[in-house]
């Protein structure tokens, strides 16, 4: 039996998950669960989604071996190239699924939250393609550091609204999206961007992203003569790209590593809590006030984590180390110079961990999910690294 199960009606992964939403939203969550379950079992829906993934998003994404960096670190390093998907990250897998589902449910409008802007851009893209209205909430701080993605979303016809409350980052964008959804639930689908929030989102978003892990496992077996990698690594904010790649390897012998930012280490430093509709590890004070995360990467600047990651950590199936911003900057330039690939700052977290842990992994095969490309981060890194 797989470690990753379909949760029951209570939406639990062990003690984590659930559906902690205002009463107004309960019928919508239940409707979504029914609609997703039906759609996922419907061959026509799956065919339509797979067709879009293939002809629009560019799947399957390729597997790239990093010969230079691998040699330098004493490991065999493979990248699952989600950065090559349309819109530049893995997020497109989920939004195409949810946008098709929204149409199937008769919804005319989607709302979304975004951190770095990758999910917002993907949501705006899917909305443009499928003729849905789209509103994206983004922390005011993030709008500043990810100006380019704000422009991209607007170019795609989405309305982008600044979240001005709290830390004015991803957590507050989620609050604003949920507030919008409470008021518009009859016409609107909340297109949540990670494996978090109330049931069925953590499960549904995982299913939409498991294509990453399923493809990668097959691709690895092909190049490794039927073997699986020793270690599978991904960065974790909410945790969607990590769940996606983990789902292909959770039932193998591979170590699963989810790398968190030191300033947003929900699994590493949090305790169980309830926010944004779910019970999961959460950075909070002794009164239960949610703490603000601090990370160089807007996409990981989140004090919580998807509930299935909390579960995988609790049962000891996956490990969740954290890396500092300085290590991340190092990882960012390392991949650019050694392999000619500029990674998203989020993915630079995974690289930073690989570099640090390489001495203990000599000769092993390491698979990393390169979940997004770094174009969006170049302007920010110009300030960090200097313009010379």
């Amino acid at each position, binding site marked *: 039996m797989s470690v990753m199960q379909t949760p029951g009606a*209570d939406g639990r992964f062990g003690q984590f998950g*659930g*559906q*902690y*939403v*205002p*009463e*107004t*939203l*309960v*019928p*919508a969550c239940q409707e979504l669960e029914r609609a997703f379950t039906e759609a996922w079992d419907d061959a026509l829906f799956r065919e339509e989604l797979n067709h879009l993934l293939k002809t629009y998003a560019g799947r399957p994404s390729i597997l790239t071996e990093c010969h230079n960096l691998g040699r330098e670190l004493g490991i065999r390093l493979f990248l699952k190239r989600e950065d090559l998907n349309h819109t530049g990250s893995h997020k497109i897998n989920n939004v195409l699924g949810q946008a098709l589902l929204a149409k199937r449910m008769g919804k005319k409008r989607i709302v979304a939250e975004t951190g770095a802007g990758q999910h917002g851009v993907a949501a705006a893209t899917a909305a443009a393609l499928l003729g849905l209205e789209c509103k994206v909430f983004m922390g005011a701080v993030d709008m500043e550091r990810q100006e380019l993605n704000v422009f991209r979303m607007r170019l795609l016809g989405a309305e982008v609204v600044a979240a001005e*409350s*709290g830390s004015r980052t991803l*957590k*507050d964008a989620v*609050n604003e999206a*949920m*507030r919008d959804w*409470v*008021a*518009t*639930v*009859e016409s609107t689908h909340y297109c949540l961007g990670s494996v978090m929030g109330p049931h069925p989102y953590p499960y549904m978003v995982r299913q939409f992203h498991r294509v990453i892990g399923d493809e990668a496992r097959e691709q690895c077996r092909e190049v490794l003569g039927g073997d699986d990698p020793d270690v599978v690594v991904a960065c974790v904010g909410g945790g969607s790209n990590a769940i996606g790649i983990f789902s292909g390897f959770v039932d193998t012998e591979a170590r699963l590593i989810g790398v968190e930012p030191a300033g947003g280490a929900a699994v590493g430093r949090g*305790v*169980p*809590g*309830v*926010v*944004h*509709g779910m*019970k999961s590890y*959460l950075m*909070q004070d*002794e*009164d*239960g*006030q*949610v703490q603000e995360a601090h990370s160089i990467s807007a996409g990981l600047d989140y004090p919580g984590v998807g509930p299935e990651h909390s579960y995988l950590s609790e049962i000891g199936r996956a490990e969740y180390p954290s890396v500092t911003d300085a290590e991340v900057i190092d990882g960012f330039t390392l991949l650019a110079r050694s392999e000619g690939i500029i990674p998203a700052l989020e993915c630079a977290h995974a690289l930073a961990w690989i570099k640090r842990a390489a001495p203990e992994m000599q000769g092993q095969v390491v698979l990393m999910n390169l979940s997004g490309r770094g174009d969006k981060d170049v302007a920010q890194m110009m300030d960090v690294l200097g313009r010379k």
Partner: protein
Amino acid sequence: MHLETHLRAQRSAGRKLLVPYVTGGLLNWKEAIRAAAACGADAIEVGIPFSDPVMDGPVIQEASLRALKDGATPFGIIQEISTLDIDIPIAVMLYYNTVFRAGHERFVTSLVKNGVSGAIIPDLPLEEAGEWCRDADAAGVETIMLAAPTAPDSRLPLVVERARGFVYAVGLLGITGERDSLASTATVLAGRLKKITDKPVLIGVGVSNAEQAYEACKVADGVIQGASVVRRLMESGPDAVGEYIAEVRAAIDAH
């Protein structure tokens, strides 16, 4: 004091019910509660500020933020409630993480010890409320359940059955805050609830002034006044809260 018994007695005396909401820990919050009690409130809802209040609009968000900045804590507020010295029951409104973090037992013990009658937890719907309700029931703390306009007919009886104190009818699709007019969903929902329960049914969220309170009380047993009260407290202080509550009282007494 038992909340439901008190509200039922007031209703039996022919009175419409008025429950103001005040954010605990906000500047002059206790004075505002005393003023509201003196001016005709039937019970008080004390908001426990939370960092991420997803059911609240700008006014209560701002109030929560100010209270937290001034160092308000859940247990600090609950202890101060015991010093209010008013003769109407008090319920706290809070988000579930506050309770979960503290532990149910420690939390209900503190409520009982400080004379708090009930609790409203807007992000703890029926499906998740089981354990909390069991612990609260055992300690004699009344858990007020919210009923929403989106609930199908099959769901409302379950909500009503689980509700203690009163049934909180959410007046509109949306978050707390003042609106220009009372949403039609408010009285429609109150009507649906009144048909299936004799527990007190109060409309909250989006009942924004005396006129709207009067309108709501045509169908409901009473109203909750949140953002309209908290805004006055932040803008003008506790006396303005007292005046406002007196005005709403007079309006609903016309029924």
